[in-house]
């Protein structure tokens, strides 16, 4: 008698227990495919900063600026929005044990995708070569602005959905404290709902009517101020999901505990309160905005450093706990006991390490007096490639190494390739950052077609070493992305699925406090909950306070700009 192999379950049954897995997978994979396009252009930008012009050989890209527009929009805006919308829908719902309304989630996905296709069409046909800041009076195709708006609308639908799911959960669970991952996710979404207002107003009320010819002009300073109203807090929207993973998921991966739940919650409430009214620190050099507002927002920007420093402490402590639980000893020696062979862990820890110089550089940019030396120089892209480009992106890589296997029940195709991708991405970005920060200090401007620039001879003469570093980093990063996308697609296209019982679990972590209670024989329900945790759980109140602070910090500036608007017609200069 021959044994018949057990029939593999039909595809739809993979999602039977949790149909929200499928929409999450779509968000993640669409985001990653679009990232692949953006990342593929990256080495061309890096080579341009090494003085090597590859664009002239590429018939499908009209210019460096078109390539840079695609690179910036796809990587910084599109990939992040998809990935975060999937991740911060799935995690809080699983944490709260609630199934989201799938019609709503799928609508958000398709609205986003329609928007991205429109904007991609405009950019690929060279009708929106505006770079990702799309400052008027440069005017692109209306399709670009409408597409960008739909992308944001998609994310807002998910944001409202998660916030409402949590609000209903709170009503149905009186007296209970929101579990940590759900708490952090809701705080992040509330921050984003408030932060996105600037971009929504800019695009919907200024740029779309203007590009359609319904209005004659747009005030460039008002539009730019609305852009940065969203443009800075959007970086917290990128980094907070990484923090959620570092605080609440990584400890379990590393074999440790969350060092302090109370402090984790406090830092997210601080982010909710302080993240938004800081955008003017991108406009220190702008004529037309009074100095006192810039200085107040500088102070607020500095205050946002505090929750990031708290995160550094907590995450460091939880890794220390993990290493010592595995036998680690000493001041430095303990780090060797961490699970470096696990790419989920390694990618995220390397992301954190990149955020140390990344965050420090951010403090420099936020200091008006120092910013003057680096504003709009190559220093700035150097900075954001080790923040959003590594702290966020490499963390998302690490998350994808467990989340895609979890969602599909297909095992990760190659642990080795995943580790190579992580290390190469990390070192590639570090080399890139060294080169770009250095070029910036020499005075080389950011986002310029340097390989064909005509008059910068004496600056370039002093920048040979950093320019070479930037070029080399582009090649290293190209190899990193080949490894990464090989792992992702080989995993997704793999045939074998593990049985439900062997599914990769979501690494929700236990806090030290919970572990101590368990050791003392106290049930989770019987644990004493700190008053501070109860207070912090009132997120709606903190959201209202954040909105009030934004109104105070931005209201007078925007009203003044609106009343003194000087609308200008659009120009197409590319």
């Amino acid at each position, binding site marked *: 008698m021959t044994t018949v192999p057990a029939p593999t379950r039909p595809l739809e049954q993979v999602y039977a227990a949790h149909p929200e897995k499928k929409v999450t997978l779509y968000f993640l994979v669409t985001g990653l495919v679009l990232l692949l396009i953006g990342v593929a252009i990256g080495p061309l930008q890096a080579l341009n900063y090494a003085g090597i012009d590859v664009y002239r050989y590429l018939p499908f890209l009209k210019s460096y600026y078109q390539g840079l527009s695609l690179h910036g929009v796809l990587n910084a805006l599109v990939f992040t929005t998809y990935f975060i919308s999937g991740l911060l829908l799935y995690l809080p719902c699983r944490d709260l044990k609630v199934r989201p309304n799938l019609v709503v989630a799928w609508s958000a996905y398709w609205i986003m995708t329609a928007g991205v296709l429109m904007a991609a069409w405009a950019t690929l046909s060279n009708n929106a070569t505006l770079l990702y*800041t799309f400052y008027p009076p440069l005017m692109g195709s209306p399709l670009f602005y409408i597409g960008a708006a739909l992308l944001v609308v998609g994310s807002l639908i998910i944001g409202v959905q998660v916030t409402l799911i949590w609000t209903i959960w709170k009503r149905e669970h009186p007296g209970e404290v929101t579990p940590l991952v759900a708490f952090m996710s809701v705080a992040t979404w509330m921050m984003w709902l408030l932060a996105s207002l600037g971009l929504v107003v800019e695009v919907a009320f200024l740029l779309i009517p203007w590009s359609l010819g319904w209005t004659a002009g747009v005030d*460039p300073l008002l539009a730019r101020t609305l852009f940065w109203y969203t443009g800075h807090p959007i970086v917290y929207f990128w980094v907070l999901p990484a923090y959620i993973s570092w605080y609440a998921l990584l400890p379990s991966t590393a074999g440790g505990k969350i060092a302090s739940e109370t*402090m984790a919650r406090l830092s997210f409430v601080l982010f909710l309160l302080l993240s938004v009214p800081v955008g003017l620190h991108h406009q220190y050099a702008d*004529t037309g905005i009074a100095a006192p507002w810039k200085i107040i927002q500088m102070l607020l920007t500095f205050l946002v450093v*505090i929750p990031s420093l708290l995160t550094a402490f907590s995450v460091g402590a939880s890794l220390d706990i993990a290493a010592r639980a595995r036998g680690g000893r000493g001041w430095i020696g303990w780090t060797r006991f961490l699970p470096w062979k696990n790419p989920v862990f390694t990618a995220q820890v390397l992301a954190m390490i990149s955020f140390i110089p990344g965050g420090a550089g951010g403090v420099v940019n936020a200091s008006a007096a120092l910013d*003057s030396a680096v504003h709009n120089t190559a220093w700035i892209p150097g900075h954001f490639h080790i923040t959003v480009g590594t702290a966020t992106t490499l963390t998302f890589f690490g998350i994808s190494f467990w989340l895609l296997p979890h969602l599909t029940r297909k095992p990760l195709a190659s642990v080795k390739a995943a580790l190579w991708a992580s290390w190469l991405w990390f070192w590639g970005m570090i080399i890139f950052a060294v080169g770009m920060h250095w070029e910036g200090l020499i005075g080389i401007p950011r986002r*310029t077609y340097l390989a064909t620039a*005509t*008059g910068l001879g004496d600056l370039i003469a002093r920048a040979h070493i950093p320019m070479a570093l930037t070029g080399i980093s582009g090649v290293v990063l190209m190899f990193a992305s080949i490894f990464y996308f090989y792992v992702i697609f080989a995993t997704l296209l793999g045939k074998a699925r593990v049985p439900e019982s062997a599914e990769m679990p979501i690494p929700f972590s236990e806090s030290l406090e919970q572990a*101590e209670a368990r050791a003392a024989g106290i049930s989770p329900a019987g644990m004493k909950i700190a008053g501070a945790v109860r207070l912090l759980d009132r997120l709606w109140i903190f959201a209202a306070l954040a909105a009030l602070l934004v109104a105070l910090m931005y209201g007078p500036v925007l009203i003044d700009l609106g009343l003194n608007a000087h609308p200008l017609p659009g120009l197409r200069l590319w």
Partner: protein
Amino acid sequence: MLDHHTIEKYELGWLALSAVLVTLLFVGVISSMLTQTLPGIFTRQASYLDPAKLAGTPFAAPGLKAAPDGSLDAYVVARAFQFQPNVLRVPAGQAVTLHIVAVDVIHGLMLGQGNVNLELMPGHIATLKTRFNHPGTYTSQCHEYCGAGHQTMTFKLIVEAPE
């Protein structure tokens, strides 16, 4: 292994230290600004000029102008893809008031001397008084993307030693 109360105690200490560091940073930056590291940041007037109507203003014939009392005013116009003038000669050590305006889209200018870094919003005149102390030639370039010729929009500041 530490218990969670001890870790929270340390972390509160870290929080206090962070707050102190941030305060020191803020005080440091403000005192630096008060000592004029950013020329004109507190005195920049909000003056607007219709970019279509330069005629009749000093920007119609940009360049360095000396007033009868000897004070120096430099007028610079930024338009795609050229600064006018694109070479500015100033004497070392003398106060110069810069007046710079963009007339089409946003441009930007950083001078390799004097801590001047400006985002030039169309029509909003950047006015600031500064002094260039070190003789030499300082190359820079428009630093806000303004279109296909952005990389050719260069500017030279030549600080001339007194004879």
